[in-house]
């Protein structure tokens, strides 16, 4: 076994041995595994009895630059991240932020009335409240005994 190297007693510190295995696995896979392009914006979805709240991190995007559409049970968020560089005569030291068009689609567990949907953005966090229509709410069925 390659893991039991001479001079190293794996039982002296089992956590260190595990850590070493993890490091080796990460080294073997971490560098070669192609990372999927991160989806923008990242979404957190909150579910409750009264509906769904979708929260997204959209730094640098104003609410006016977002297009939120609801069709039946599909929510779509579209927008564009524009670079805020002023002037052409600039030299970049670091360029880590990403810009361009984005779109995300969320399939909801119920049909939504578009007039009931409320959206707000604050500090780069977009919140979309999607209430569940009364007709779509689960109904309690009374069981009658004969």
């Amino acid at each position, binding site marked *: 076994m390659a893991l039991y190297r001479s001079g190293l007693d794996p039982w002296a510190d089992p956590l260190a041995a595990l850590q070493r295995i993890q490091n080796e696995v990460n080294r073997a896979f971490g560098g070669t595994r192609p990372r999927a392009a991160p989806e923008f914006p990242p979404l957190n979805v909150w579910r409750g*009895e009264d509906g769904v709240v979708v929260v997204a991190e959209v730094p640098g995007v104003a609410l006016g630059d977002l297009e939120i559409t609801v069709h039946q049970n599909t929510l779509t968020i579209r927008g564009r991240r524009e670079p805020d560089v002023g002037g052409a005569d600039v030299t970049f030291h670091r360029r880590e932020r990403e810009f361009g068009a984005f779109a995300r689609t969320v399939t909801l567990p119920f049909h939504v009335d578009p007039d009931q949907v409320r959206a707000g953005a604050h500090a780069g966090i977009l919140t979309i409240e999607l209430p569940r229509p009364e007709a779509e709410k689960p109904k309690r069925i009374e069981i009658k005994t004969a």
Partner: protein
Amino acid sequence: MIDQTSGQQPVAEDRPETTRNRPVFSPPTDIYETADALVVSMEMPGVEPDGVDVTLDKRVLTITGVGTSVEPEGFALSHAEYRVGDYERAFTLSENIDRDGIEAALRDGVLRLTLPKVKPAPAKTISVKAG
């Protein structure tokens, strides 16, 4: 670490642990230089203006931000692609910065710092008097 949650910002490593049990992210940053200033723009979604702290100590510019979370009452998180945490980054500046002229603006979760360069002192002619 093998990180499958690709949408998450990288967690800042190699620094002492924080007392608060929440991640500290290394926010994506653009830095560019114009003729008279250095501009830093950093994505910090969820940070309020009073949650940002910018310090320039000698040549080290440190920016920290405390993220606020949106937790709708009566709802349970069923799908998560990002975590709420704090932000921290530090840069060593090579330019001489006019400390009193630093401007910071936070808009839509993006912090924009304008660090004006120190203007070179105008050349001074020293007249030599004959003794």
